[in-house]
């Protein structure tokens, strides 16, 4: 009899443990709880320097698609797993540059209204990027705007972040040469690139800034947005070290300056 009780108790306990394990496997961890993984290291990768788009490896490009950097297959790229609405949205946009551009009807909000390009769109501009590393945070500075982002180290995302242009970023170091940046909390107002790929507030962007050698940095990105794409997809930007100086002139989008440019150089060219 004692044996039967023991067996029953053991079976019940096993069932409870199994149940807990299954439940744990079926529970998607909150992004707010996501933080540095076990592989994170305390060694700080040296990413110092001014980083310019590498003209020999993709340059600035038009599209984030790895198979279509020039944006010639917009809407039909083999590596972008669109949801139907996202494909339709992409095809409905009018790019300001690239092969499908439509100057007279561009819908790019950054070009039309001086809105922040956001990330990763900022990396398709002819500008340099500087990473300022401190123990508490990495500050990513851009020559255009000038905009900057704060990547909080040793931190977690808030439980319910307010949707914002640049999202909320946390980061950690891996493999002695890589900074991983994990960002959520985006609004849905920016394009991902020059050719109009959309995203939603659900976007979870993971960036890996890896210093390959003294003069080279690679940025691998994973775009995980179940609101717009059926599965995560990858993109890359390549950078070279620049020694000409950072932010020698502030490239600011000003409506007043744009108006003057319009009056002087656009109006006369439009007249029939």
């Amino acid at each position, binding site marked *: 009899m004692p044996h039967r009780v023991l067996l029953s108790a053991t079976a019940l306990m096993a069932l409870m443990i199994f149940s807990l394990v299954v439940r744990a496997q079926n529970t998607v961890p909150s992004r707010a709880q996501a933080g540095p993984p076990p592989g994170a290291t305390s060694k700080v990768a040296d990413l110092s320097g001014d980083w310019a788009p590498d003209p020999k490896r993709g340059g600035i490009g038009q599209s984030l698609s790895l198979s279509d950097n020039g944006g010639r297959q917009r809407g039909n790229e083999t590596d972008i797993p669109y949801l139907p609405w996202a494909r339709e949205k992409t095809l409905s946009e009018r790019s300001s540059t690239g092969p499908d551009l439509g*100057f007279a009807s561009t819908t*790019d909000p950054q070009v039309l209204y001086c809105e922040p390009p956001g990330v990763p769109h900022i990396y398709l501009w002819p500008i340099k990027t500087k990473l300022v590393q401190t123990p508490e945070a990495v500050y990513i500075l851009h*020559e255009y705007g000038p905009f900057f982002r704060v990547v909080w180290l040793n931190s977690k995302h808030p439980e319910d972040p307010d949707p914002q242009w640049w999202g909320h970023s946390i980061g950690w170091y891996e493999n002695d040469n890589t900074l991983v940046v994990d960002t959520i909390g985006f609004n849905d107002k920016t394009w991902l690139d020059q050719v109009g790929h959309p995203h939603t507030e659900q976007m979870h962007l993971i960036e890996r800034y890896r210093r390959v050698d003294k003069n080279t940095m690679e940025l691998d990105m994973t775009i995980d947005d179940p609101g717009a794409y059926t599965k995560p997809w990858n993109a890359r930007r390549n950078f070279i070290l620049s020694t*000409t100086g950072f932010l*020698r002139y502030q490239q600011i989008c000003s409506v007043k300056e744009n108006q003057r440019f319009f009056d*002087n150089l656009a109006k006369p*060219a439009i007249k029939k």
Partner: protein
Amino acid sequence: MNGNSTRTVGILFALAFGLVVARPVLAHHGAAGLYDVSKAVMMKGTITKFEWTNPHNQIYFDVKDDKGNVVHWIVATEPPQVMLERGWTRRSLKEGDQVTVYAFVASNGAPVGNLQRLVLPDGKELSAR
């Protein structure tokens, strides 16, 4: 700035920006009909003003046409921050400089355009690309 002019600023900005980032597809820019990017037009003139400014630098110069009339031209370059990378400064041009300008010009004949390169009196060439 009304909606149309805001949009057109975007159009022109996009045109110039596109020239920075999308040189392999320049031919497509001609579809806009604003500038003829199939060939650069050469002009000899005198600098009257050089504005080093966002969103694009503006170069003012006078050119005499076939009838001897003075035509006031304006051509744009990329933003100062980009032109610094290409060796330009705000002092690269000054009033009175006699220059030879190569530019994509408006398709409708208006005296405006997008600078490709410029030659100074001493023969020094400044590339806008």
